[in-house]
């Protein structure tokens, strides 16, 4: 893998402040009553922060597709575990015997 271009400190500063901003945002939003939306918004912010860290701090944006496939596999397999076990838990009331 050739010498991949490296982000400089300026970009790291920007990413750091965005992450800090998102942390404050998630804290502030948690105190506003959005009903069912609350956990969704909290998770969405957490995911964006995670993607920011992965792309820039972990240089995945500049690495080859193999690394990108590996990461997406990781999260996809986690989704398999969650969705298929939820498919059991949430459907227990469908056919009440």
């Amino acid at each position: 893998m050739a010498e991949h271009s490296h982000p400089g400190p300026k970009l790291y500063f920007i990413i750091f402040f965005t992450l800090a901003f998102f942390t404050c945002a998630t804290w502030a939003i948690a105190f506003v009553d959005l009903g069912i939306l609350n956990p969704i918004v909290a998770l969405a912010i957490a995911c964006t922060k995670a993607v920011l860290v992965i792309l820039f701090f972990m240089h995945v944006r500049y690495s080859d597709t193999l690394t990108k496939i590996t990461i997406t596999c990781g999260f996809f397999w986690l989704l398999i575990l969650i969705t298929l076990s939820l498919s059991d838990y949430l459907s227990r009331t469908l056919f009440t015997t």
Partner: protein
Amino acid sequence: MSTSQTTTTEHHPALAHQFDSMAQQQGASTFGMWVFLLTEIMMFGGLFAAYLIYRIKYYDAFVAGSTSISVSWGFANTLVLIASSFTMAMAVWSAHKGKRGPLVGFLIGTMILGAVFLGIKGKEYYDKYDECHIPGHVIGKGFNAWGGCSVNNPGLGNIADEIQQHAREAGVSVPEASAMQTARQTEIFFSFYFLMTGLHAFHMIIGMGLMTWLLLRSRRGDFGPQYYTPIELGGLYWHFVDIVWIYLFPLLYLISRHKGAI
């Protein structure tokens, strides 16, 4: 990258015998680290799946448990960890640019911030110990969600009161019996709280050990623009542990904190 011609560059001392070139070695090591992080994602994932299922099953108890832990310390910890991620990224950058001074400095910065994180975590654990909110009855005086357990602050730790007080703010009155019952069920929330943050703190401690080893090697000057893979791998590990905390903070600390929730 399948083809690697055996370029007859002078052998860099750090090139392992089974690799043909430094680029191949770095590529293999970074990819190997990512595969390892895959296993970490699945390990924490199993815990998150179990947490999700119990959150659905005992939602009120999770709300009561989450509101009883202090969100400000959690928030502070998140900022500390993001800062440590930043210093770690700067450390990788300076290793890549061959600047030994900043590399050592940023590594020390990362370790300090890591220590601060563990310190705050320790304080939170002590608070839980003091209020007897440690699940099970092996550590401390056993789980007790109805107060009167803390030595230096007897009024603390009564989750049943907190539930009723929280409900009063939301304009709904919750009687004593049901508040007591939800308080007893918060033990499951605290088991997941300690399991998830404990596993995360354990990974932080391993990370600190890793950083000390990298610090020693950097001071010895092992790393330069041609060879800084260990620093990069240490960085990947550290950022991963930070990402785990990024998910832990909202999932554990911010469960329906807003006024309207009962």
